[in-house]
């Protein structure tokens, strides 16, 4: 997927740069050459690597949870649907954690506790939108989130290993 992305990006860059050098869509007051070099620097932005790395680790996390579910699920459909639901819940985990800290109700707190503890925070790996519009994302943040993803994936895989060992094949 990353290779396809790089190829599409490269082709698009060439087309847009050629159009800019021909004077199309250039910001008034800017030299076409300067405008073209701005386009090239944006398409070759190293921050894209951060976004790709985080997407990859997000996928690793979801795959490891899916694998965990597969060790006890008997239906493929159940497995797929669970993965989709976890993907959606994973983006809401941050919200659940905030509510867990703020909500006084014991029943709600218990439910939110389960979500907070079991579901991974996929939202923290979602920085593509920010990278695309040129907002800075520190390598330190990328490192922390990758560490978090590796840790959570290891937990899920360890649990999957334990369950699978008990399984009669």
């Amino acid at each position, binding site marked *: 997927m990353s290779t396809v992305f790089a190829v599409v990006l490269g082709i698009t860059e060439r087309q847009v740069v050629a159009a800019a050098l021909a004077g199309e869509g250039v910001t*008034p007051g800017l030299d076409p050459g300067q405008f073209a070099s701005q386009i090239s620097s944006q398409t070759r932005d190293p921050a894209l690597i951060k976004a790709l790395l985080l997407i990859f680790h997000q996928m690793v996390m979801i795959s490891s949870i899916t694998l965990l579910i597969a060790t006890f699920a008997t239906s493929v459909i159940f497995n797929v649907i669970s993965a989709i639901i976890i993907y959606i819940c994973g983006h809401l985990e941050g919200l659940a954690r905030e509510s867990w800290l703020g909500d006084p109700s014991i029943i709600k707190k218990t439910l939110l506790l389960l979500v907070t503890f079991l579901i991974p925070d996929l939202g923290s790996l979602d920085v593509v939108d920010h990278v695309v519009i040129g907002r800075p994302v520190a390598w330190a943040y990328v490192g922390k989130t990758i560490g978090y993803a590796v840790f959570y994936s290891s937990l899920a895989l360890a649990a999957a290993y334990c369950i699978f060992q008990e399984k009669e094949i």
Partner: protein
Amino acid sequence: LHFPGKGNLIVVTGIPRLALRLLPIILLGLPIKVLMEKPIHQYRLEHKLAGPRVSMDVRDKVGQNMAVAILGGFRGFVSDIIWIMQVHISWENEIWYKLKEGVELAALLQPHSKFFWDTGAWHMAWNASYAESINQRYTREHRKKVEKAWIQEGRDFLQKGVENNPDDYLLYHRMGWLYREKMEDPAGAIPYLKKAYSFPEAPLFVGTMVGHMCVESGKHREAWEWWKHLWLNPRDGESEPLRARILRWGIESEEKLALPEHERFFSLQKNSLKLDPNR
């Protein structure tokens, strides 16, 4: 549990054994997971990486399916869809209230995307205001009033954009441009253009715009000082023709101010350029 000579006293098999194995993962691993999330969450809050909350109001506007997509991490995708399906089509059909709603929603979902603020403000202050200014359904007085109201809407919208993106020159420049072109207030444009030019990545024409706004608003002393500032602090990429133009504008300001010979600055700089400033 195995005791020598007595054999196994307790044998754990099946589900209880599994529970025993999973217990350390749950008791140790999951609290560590929550602790690891804390600094990540803190960073996201500090650097505004977490998007705005999806309130009931937003949910009502986007519909239930789109709300789920937003919650599921497809915020950028949803805002693009809203832009294409609602904003662009409303623009083509000239349904301005619907356009405004879509523009605000897209910007709310992606508050750090300058495109939504910039183009949204342009739709309101330029397209909607002009369309309403020639709308024959209104009386002449009402047309003027509605036109002004749309320009104000565009200005207010852009102001929100500036507040959400204070670290970029683009929206400050657009605000200056709006003040000049639509509000006919070149003096009001000056602070925004100056702010825009304070960013090193701002194009050179933003700097010269500041001087022109000073001239247009009759602030010739300020214009002269600004030309001097540009002259003394050249930026990378400044060409000789541009320097010559700054020199010419500086001399014009000195003439407007009727400065005495000893106070003049630009008149003394004429020989420093190869190009003729009068050209």
